[in-house]
């Protein structure tokens, strides 16, 4: 009798563990897929930048410093490995691009250039896509992490070799900095 009960409990535990395993695998794959979506959009941005630099180079030749900054940031972003490093490098690239577009505002003939405005639209769209892909990835990665860390799933998640997914966060110090506002009246 006791033997049967133990066997029954064991069977229930095994069936439960199988269910947990399968749902974790499903979440893990969704997370990986979310990460791939970010990668696709990052690649899109990397491909657009040489075009942009090529287009504005002639007019903005004396802004050489900014242009090199953008190109260097792009190259570093391409070679970055891992979630955290990528997030940092991509943020540097975002900053460099913003600077470039701010400078474009100073050149009326660039602003009215059809190619430049096309590229500007494509890049701001890519910027949004990266943001949304990141939002989607972080949501699903958080779900995956919560599933691993809550009781009782956490008892088997570690045994089955699951690891928490890294979130794609803004780790750039400059972006986190709170703008200082001077409230002293003179």
């Amino acid at each position, binding site marked *: 009798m006791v033997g049967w009960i133990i066997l029954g409990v064991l069977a229930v535990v095994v069936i439960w563990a199988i269910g947990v395993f399968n749902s974790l695998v499903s979440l893990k794959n969704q997370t990986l897929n979310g990460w791939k*979506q970010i990668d696709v*959009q990052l690649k899109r941005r990397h491909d657009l930048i040489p075009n942009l630099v090529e287009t504005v180079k002639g007019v903005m030749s004396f802004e050489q410093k900014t242009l090199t900054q953008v190109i260097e940031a792009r190259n570093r972003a391409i070679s970055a490995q891992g979630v955290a490093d990528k997030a940092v490098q991509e943020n540097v690239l975002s900053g460099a691009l913003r600077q470039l577009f701010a400078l474009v505002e100073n050149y009326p003939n660039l602003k009215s250039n059809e190619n430049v*405005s*096309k590229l500007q*639209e*494509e890049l*701001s*769209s890519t910027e*949004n*896509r990266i943001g*949304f*892909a990141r*939002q*989607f990835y972080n949501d699903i990665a958080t779900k995956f992490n919560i599933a691993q860390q809550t009781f009782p799933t956490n008892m088997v998640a570690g045994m089955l070799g699951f690891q928490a997914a890294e979130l794609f966060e803004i780790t750039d110090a400059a972006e986190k900095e709170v703008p200082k506002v001077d409230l002293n009246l003179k």
Partner: protein
Amino acid sequence: MNIYERQAHNRRWTWFIVFAFISFFLFLGLGFDYYYGARLEMPIFTVIAIIFGVVMAYSGYLWGDKLVLSSTHAKGLDLNDPKQKQWQNVVEEVSIAAGIPLPKTYIIEDPDPNAFATGRSPETSSIAVTSGLLDALNRDELQAVAAHEMSHVKNFDIRLMLMIAVLVGSIALLADWTRRSLFFGNRRSDRRSEGGGYVALVVLVVWLITVILAPILSQLMAMCVSRKREYLADASGAELTRNPLALASALEKISSHEGPTRSINQGTAHLCICDPKGMAMGMKDGGLANLFATHPPIQKRIEALRQMAYIK
């Protein structure tokens, strides 16, 4: 309700609508058999009516989106036009945020700003905008509109709305047709008058009333079903872009164009982001205006969105 419950809810409602539609035809067929076909041994009209109803519902399910799109003269985007390219980009962005396949995009040449989504599932969905909308709104507002439509797509509102559009339209058409054939058709004069005469009369009257009331009832239902969904799509659209104020200002701009959207007819009104009839009903609230509007008052929607951004 979370997204899965909403999807399930919409699937159930779609089935209910289809079921009601087919029962309506069953009812119609039974009436015809009683009234005209007593000489025949088989309930021939009933069988025809049911087959007709099933075929209508199924073909509406398969091709209804194309019907709706062609009835509004929607055509594909010209990606060389910067504004249309921007719209395409915005839709792609939002589809990433929503995590659903990219819907097909269409444009309708109409100066009045409006937009709608249709299709039977996220995989087969389409989003159409008027050229007026592209001209009137800036990038953020276009994104907000795309997100609103995308939430209709994601939670299967589009399937339910499509079935309503197709089936309500066909009932209205058919009711019109039967009403005429009833009044002017050649009736059988030798109806069995012995016994059950009263019952026959009552059945006939009820049947007649249903035939006449059905289009009105179905129209009312289409309106009720779509109004709640607009608030919901506003909210989940804002959740996608995390920018409720952009949608609020988009709605404000859309409502400031008083004219009706001429290329969108009444049968597809409930699909749109704003009532294509124009201003007349948009602002008023309560009573009859509330009963006959396919959309909640735009001012209320804007207020709800402002509250999401903690602005009173």
